[in-house]
């Protein structure tokens, strides 16, 4: 570069100034060292037993898509978790400590995920990363978290990959993984639609592909006549639906997010095609689906029935109690918390998810002890957790870091997910059976807070 001398000094001055500014901006506190365990004084004394834990607070972090293409819907989950934490804080906290939930926006970009998680761990010294959302995003940080022995609990993704206790001992899943879900849906199809032609409609990432894997484990190959994938970058799914129709699929099994479930339904209308629909719980929250289709229902010119009719009869599954079961103690509890702390958000599947996973975290923290180290939390979950709002017991163990193992089949009736069968549990292997779970779900605690 041709540069007069003055400008060169200007640049050097600028560089130095920037460097000093960066140094000045950095937080003065280095990551706090893990102190030794509690002193020999009375066991009720609360100490700063780990990074992120002080005598009065527990600070946890998360990465969430608060803006961008993945934000619609998913941006409700963290506020819902925070609502539950606020409820717990208002009622005594966890052994008297308040939970501080710091969730940062990563816009579903793995580069940003790496940045915000490092900020949370290296600068803000959080105790654990909780409910990190997204598979490609969380894969960017799982190795870092495990290297630094930061508990990485209840990842918000159904990928099988979180179940790797040997390589990632500090990472735990929570929701039912997509292969299990596929097997449960697949068994339902195999039992109730014998001999009928089945087509798949799935998202072209691990969510859809794992789901199809599970479906294929249960549905006889001879029944599968078409497998159509869609990309979230392309909302025109007309060709895929046309292909399903051309193949004669009488049952469509779908692993699609709500927007694309709605598009699938609308396309079917456009093509005068009416197969039976069996769709993963990820894509069938009736509140969300209804909202997506509502404009078509209200539309005066359109000869389309009401939104509820548009989604009536869709088969799906559920691993948490259904929002429509107002007599269920968990739904009552979570609705009360929603109405108190986040009334502006709709009480839909995302909010239920957020509150339920937050409840599970509190269960784990209570089990970890009064002055837990980071390892205490991991050990607590490895020892198994009580069932909580899940419909089947958790299967956490030292050798299994998947959380949920089962779901019930349901059908959307009058805008509500209505269970139509018992809870089915299974594993992720090709040959493992899908069996009925005969136990029942425990009731929610009267206080709304798990017992230690």
């Amino acid at each position, binding site marked *: *570069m041709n540069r007069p001398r003055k400008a060169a000094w*200007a640049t050097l001055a600028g560089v*130095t100034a920037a460097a000093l500014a960066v140094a000045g901006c*950095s937080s003065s506190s280095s*990551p706090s060292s893990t102190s030794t365990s509690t002193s020999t004084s009375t066991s009720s004394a609360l100490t700063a037993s780990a990074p992120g834990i002080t005598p009065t607070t527990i600070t946890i972090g998360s990465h969430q898509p608060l803006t961008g293409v993945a934000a619609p819907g998913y941006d409700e989950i963290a506020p819902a978790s925070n609502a539950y934490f606020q409820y717990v804080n208002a009622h005594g906290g966890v052994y008297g400590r308040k939970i501080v939930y710091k969730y940062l926006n990563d816009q579903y970009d793995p580069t940003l995920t790496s*940045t915000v998680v490092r900020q949370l761990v290296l*600068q803000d010294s959080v105790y654990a990363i909780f409910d990190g959302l997204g598979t490609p995003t969380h*894969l960017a940080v799982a190795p870092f978290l495990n290297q630094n022995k930061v508990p990485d609990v209840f990842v918000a993704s159904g990928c099988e990959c979180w179940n790797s206790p040997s390589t990632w001992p500090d990472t735990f899943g929570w929701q039912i993984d997509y292969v299990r879900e596929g097997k449960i849906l697949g068994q339902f199809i195999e039992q109730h639609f014998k001999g009928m032609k089945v087509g798949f409609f799935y998202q072209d990432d691990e969510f859809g592909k794992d789901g199809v894997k599970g479906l294929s484990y249960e549905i006889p190959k001879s029944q599968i006549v078409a497998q159509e994938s869609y990309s979230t970058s392309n909302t025109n799914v007309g060709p895929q639906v046309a292909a399903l129709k051309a193949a004669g699929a009488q049952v469509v099994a779908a692993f699609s997010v709500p927007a694309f479930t709605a598009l699938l339904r609308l396309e079917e209308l456009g093509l005068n095609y009416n197969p039976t629909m069996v769709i993963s719980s990820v894509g069938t929250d009736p509140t969300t689906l209804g909202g997506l289709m509502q404009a078509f229902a209200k539309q005066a010119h359109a000869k389309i029935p009401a939104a509820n009719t548009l989604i009536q009869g869709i088969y799906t599954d559920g691993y948490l109690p259904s929002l429509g079961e107002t007599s269920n103690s968990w739904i009552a509890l979570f609705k009360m918390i929603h109405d108190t702390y986040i009334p502006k*958000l709709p009480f839909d599947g995302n909010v239920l998810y957020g509150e339920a996973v937050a409840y599970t975290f509190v269960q784990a923290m209570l089990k970890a002890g009064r002055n837990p180290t980071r390892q205490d939390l991991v050990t607590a979950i490895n020892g198994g957790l009580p069932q909580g709002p899940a419909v089947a017991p958790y299967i956490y163990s030292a050798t299994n870091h998947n959380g949920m193992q089962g779901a019930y089949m349901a059908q959307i009736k009058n805008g509500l997910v209505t269970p139509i069968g018992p809870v089915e549990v299974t594993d992720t292997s090709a040959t493992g059976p899908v069996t009925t779970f005969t136990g029942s779900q425990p009731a929610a605690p009267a206080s709304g807070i798990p017992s230690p």
Partner: protein
Amino acid sequence: MTLLRHLIAAVVVAAIVAALSYRVGAYRDYQIAEVSAYVTAVAGLTVLIGLSGQISIGNGAFMAIGGYATALLLLHQHWPLAAVIAASTAAAAAAGGLVGVAAARLRGPYLAGATLLLAVAIPVSIADHWAGLFGGDQGLTVSVSTPAALAAEPTRYYAWLTTGVALISLVLLANLGRSRVGRSWRALRDDEVAAALSGLNVARLQVLAFVVSAASGGAGGALLAVVTGIASPGAYTLTLSVGLLVAAVVGGLGSLAGAVWGSLLYVFVPTYLSNVAASHGLNSGASSNIPIAVYGLVLVVVMLAFPSGIQGALRRLFGSVAPSAAVPLSSLRSLRRRRPASPHQPASPHQEESTL
């Protein structure tokens, strides 16, 4: 003489950064590493646009090639890291050559459109095809072992590594800019016909510019993959390419120091705004968009207030240009201010239209 001066400057900056990396915490080290990775990529882009006059909104694709090449080599081969980065740079350079040849006849917005679509198509194609090799949507993990001496501070190692590579590329680009090639690029940028009439091989120079910018993009992508630990399609979306462009222009087009300012802006400003919003309790739902909106506003305001970018503003701040020195960009433009707009020829980014 030029080379020596550049090397001395590079050593000085390296010393400053090394000293800094001991003083600041691990997270700031990580941010320094990010900045250096972006500087490497933005420097090549600012050379492409500022010196050779060709616009590219697709350099994120070259970063993707560099990142994936690094991930694949680290997964399947046991080469030393330096060789991996060099190979990734070469792979991206080769792609840049292809793009340059294909785009040799394109100018202005048509080149912009072609490179934009390249930025969109490449990551999506990587995600959807050959998933066995490229890891599909989940991408590939990149793990680089920290040398034993720095094992306790991996982010400091990243900072040193990336700053080292960034300084090397800055020195190379600076030398290139002051060489005959650099002068030929400027001639090409200012008046393509005159340059051709003077005997310059226009097409070859243009392709070379693309190769250089792709190489630095590939190196930047390799560094970013090492630092973030992943190469996945979600990391190389159009947002990245646009971000590189913003960094190059806001920092100061055609200036390597501008590449540094732009990268600093790109890494620090959005997270700073985010943290400010979070500390005021504004980080849920609708208010998480506030930092986004403010960042957009910052871009608009900075561009209106500092038309020559940050480097241009700094230059003005530190006194006027000595008349005996080589003529910088801004005063050249003023000479052409009265030239009427050519009616049909799509303007290259540096041809000024008549003011209205």
